[in-house]
């Protein structure tokens, strides 16, 4: 019988590969989610009804649907129209849309919470709407939603573990493969839990460092 450490030594490359996929897919989803979420937020707050309504529907449906269902839907539904995006693409898409919807809604709340007097003051000094947005509103909103962004990133990393259900070889699926060979079940689940914990604590620490660095709080 191999010891846990023996198995770990043998499978460290595999584990590292899984970890890389977890980090990359989460990173991509958060980055793309921020961009898309910013667009969602602006559309929800300042968009005309024609623009705001469909975004509202997307955001509400996504926020009311469990992430796992989003992932399965992104994985299975495209087949209906003859597409087969593959598990990694489908999973990244699901996480991105999930991330974007949460950020969009948070951003809308933050923008609406900025007093109207700020917009008035900006117009009074002659800024256009785009300038007002860029120089006055968005910087204030970012301060508001910074802690939320960190939470969302943590949620995305956790949700990425669900990609194992559609066969993405991320950290959890890799862990399960190793367990399948070695039967060191609790040890490797504990290890995987520890790695997720480490990633998320790193995100939280990095987030509060950035907040301090840019005096967001």
């Amino acid at each position, binding site marked *: 019988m191999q010891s846990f450490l023996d198995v770990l030594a043998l499978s460290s490359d595999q584990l590292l590969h899984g970890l890389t996929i977890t980090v990359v897919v989460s990173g991509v989803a958060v980055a793309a989610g921020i961009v898309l979420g910013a667009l969602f937020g602006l559309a929800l707050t300042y968009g005309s009804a024609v623009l705001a309504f469909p975004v509202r529907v997307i955001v*509400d*449906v996504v926020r*009311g*649907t*469990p*992430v*796992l*269902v989003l992932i*399965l*839907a992104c994985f*299975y*539904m495209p*087949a*209906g*129209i*003859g597409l087969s995006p593959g598990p990694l693409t489908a999973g990244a898409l699901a996480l991105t849309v999930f991330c974007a919807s949460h950020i969009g809604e948070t951003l809308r709340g933050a923008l609406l919470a900025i007093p109207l007097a700020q917009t008035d003051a900006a117009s009074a000094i002659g800024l256009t709407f785009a300038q007002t947005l860029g120089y006055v509103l968005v910087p204030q909103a970012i301060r508001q939603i910074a802690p939320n962004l960190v939470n969302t990133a*943590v949620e995305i*990393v*956790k*949700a990425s*573990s*669900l990609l*194992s*259900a559609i066969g993405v070889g991320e950290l*959890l699926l890799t862990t*399960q493969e190793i367990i399948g060979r070695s039967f060191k*079940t*609790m040890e490797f*689940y*504990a290890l*995987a*839990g520890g790695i*997720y*914990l480490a990633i*998320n*604590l790193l995100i*939280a620490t990095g987030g509060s460092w950035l907040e301090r660095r840019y005096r967001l709080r």
Partner: protein
Amino acid sequence: MGYALDFAAVLRGLDQLLWGLALGLIMGLAGLAVGSAIGIVAALAHVFGPQPARTVVRLYVGLIRNVPILVLALFAFFALPQFGIQFSNITTFAAVLAVYAGAYLTESFRAAMITVPQGILDAGRSIGLTGSGVALWVVLPIALRNALPSVGNNFISLFKDTSIAAVIAVPELTFQARKINNESFRVIEVWLTASFLYVGTCALIALTLRRLEARFPKF
């Protein structure tokens, strides 16, 4: 495109989907009930307890909130029998859900407790209540009411998290949807339906909560 929507297969499986939904709600409610008990005790320990108790609570919250619930569930699934605890998949998942919810609810109740104004605490002390008296008779009832919106949001999250039980073969809504998906290949209809059921249920829960909140005054 060439894809014609046909809900027949989904409708045939509607019973299973709805039973799955009910199972999710039951697991969610169980998780909420036990999780609230954990959360209240842990929040009291954090706000009023000695330093070691605070540390334990902080470790619990920090650990559970940063690890995916699926990893916790899989771990529990294999760990519990080692301690001679033989739970069904459903009970195991509900138990994990409770521990998971407990961590989030600890934060909800803690936030509600620490926002009780100092003057109210002073008033409690000035009539001669001890620290635990103030905690129990003054802070706790106020915090329970004021945490209600946050607890409600937690319940909605919790209900959505019950979908993850599908991965360990608990026959709830997502599991049933995937089964119909694999048997009928009505890939669009089944996920539209599943999503609709989740979104609708979440909206109903939110509406019920708002009515409940309106009935009790916020302090």
